[in-house]
């Protein structure tokens, strides 16, 4: 156990992109009321894979590694769509996932937003239309491009979404 603590202290904190904290503080001031009212101080994201290659999911998992530590900004992934503000959808939306993704969307309380993640969620990316692909027809509010978008890019786009999205 001592070995572990020695290692722990030697390694220190590796979290990067601290510029986001500053930026987030500013945004917070700007949209403080909005966040308080609608997001209860934090942003809850429910991620659903509608038929991706799994790289987008791997990058979302990377968001919680010590280098990115996304949750420090108050943005966190939740287990149920009923706890979510945002539905983050990756993949081409297959025929077999279509109703399940829509079910998840319908379970979310209002107000709610849909963010698509990765090139193939927008226009299939390198893939081509087949009978087994429906394409995403949810009411999409924001798109995060990339194949896959890097964790840093996803963080930047989340903040950008918060800045630019208006809440009625």
């Amino acid at each position: 156990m001592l070995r572990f603590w020695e290692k722990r202290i030697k390694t220190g904190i590796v979290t990067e992109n601290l510029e986001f904290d500053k930026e987030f503080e500013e945004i917070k001031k700007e949209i403080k009321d909005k966040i308080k009212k609608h997001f209860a101080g934090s942003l809850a994201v429910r991620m659903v894979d509608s038929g991706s290659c799994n790289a987008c999911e791997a990058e979302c998992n990377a968001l919680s590694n010590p280098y990115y530590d996304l949750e420090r900004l108050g943005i966190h992934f939740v287990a149920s769509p009923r706890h979510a503000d945002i539905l983050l959808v990756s993949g081409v939306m297959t025929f077999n996932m279509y109703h399940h993704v829509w079910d998840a969307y319908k379970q979310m309380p209002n107000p709610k937003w849909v963010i698509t993640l990765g090139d193939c969620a927008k226009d299939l990316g390198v893939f081509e239309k087949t009978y087994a692909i429906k394409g995403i027809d949810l009411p999409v509010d924001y798109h995060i491009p990339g194949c896959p978008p890097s964790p840093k890019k996803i963080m930047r786009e989340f903040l950008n979404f918060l800045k630019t999205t208006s809440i009625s």
Partner: protein
Amino acid sequence: MRLIARFAKENKNNFEIIDVFDKEVKKHFLDKNNPKIKTLTKKYPAAIWMERKIRDEFGIEFEESFDNRPAIKHERFPKDIYPLRKDFKDKKIEFSKFTPYKYEEISGDSVFTVPVGPIHAGIIEPGHFHFSQAGEEILHLEVRHFYKYRAIEKMMENKNPLEITKIISRISGNESIAYQKAYFNILSKASGFEISENLNKTHAILLEIERIIHHLTDLGFIPNDAGFAAALAYMGKLAEEARRIFKKVTNHRFGFDAIFNNEFDFSSLNNFLDYLKNEIKFFENWIEDIPSVWDRFDTTGRLTKEKAIKYGVVGVGARASGIKIDTRDNDFYKKYGFEIQLGEKGEVADRFRVRIKEIYNSIEIIKNMLDVKKEEFEFSVKDGEYMSFVESSIGELFMYLNIVDGKTDRFYVRDPSHINWQAFHTTIYKDIIADFPLINKSFDLSYAGNDL
């Protein structure tokens, strides 16, 4: 004999069933008006999903088969179409009437079912797990997939074989390099050139980096599912560092398109591997001393050697059960330090330790190969049938391509997950349901590669 794949293709005058075994390839030709063939499932249970898929996609019947349920045709999928037949050209189909799927369920006094998925609580691919429970104990599990079915095989048809490499790269994100390498081998065979030792080494380095990253991720997630989150933080950090090195090497965090772009920078690799080796050593010493972790790992999720052989399980799953099966087990890899890494009992603990041992071995292999030079290649493919095998981070990957008149006539790939998923249910009998995530992560199979 070990069954590797059974798949179908349509020829002008007949349907063809191709059975690929480790020692031979058998072909059967079926009458188009009444296509039927004897099932393989009685001897080879891993043929079940393969035959169900063929029945759905080609309308070929399997005599004496005991499982005739649909695989890719889910509840609202039209039943009367056979989309992989050549005369099916629709890009769009309509939802049909909801037909319930008959799950394998055990019934009886105080036995109940727990359906899980397709959408899961974490950030993970979609698939359905149907448990029959007696209290905490799992009596049976049916794994149901093909939610991510994108019809990759149909997408590839009638294309210039050189123009589908971007899709190949993105069939299964965690195994991108393995898919690219398998396809590269096919294209070189079709072009009639031998891949040089230098180029094979270059690709092997990439494959081993991909394997290291995959193992690192699992070494974090497996203990995390046993409630030991510090390991996830530790390994999450290492996996991220390895991914950044991968980005330096291939200009992409997952190595997408890397083998075909052929631009590499290996300069930072050697130092990183030395560092990584030390970090893994620390991790190994540290976690071997945590009894609560091994309390969960030992005796959990046991894949017996007999079952593994019966199902033809490949990859880490097979090796952890003591089966010597690894596509890299050849003279080329052995020359650069490859040694097969085996477990004994096939439990979560074995798969965990095999992954650690394979990281050490991958580090050694890469270090022995680092003197590679840049080398150009050019393809000019000729018609014919081509096959290739590559050891992906999950296990043996099999790929098939038939080229007719310069175009892809039939593309098929058998992801290692396609076999291993089918043996999965044998590992959890009488384990508790809370062990399921742990066991699942210890195999870490691909959903996208299985579903296609």
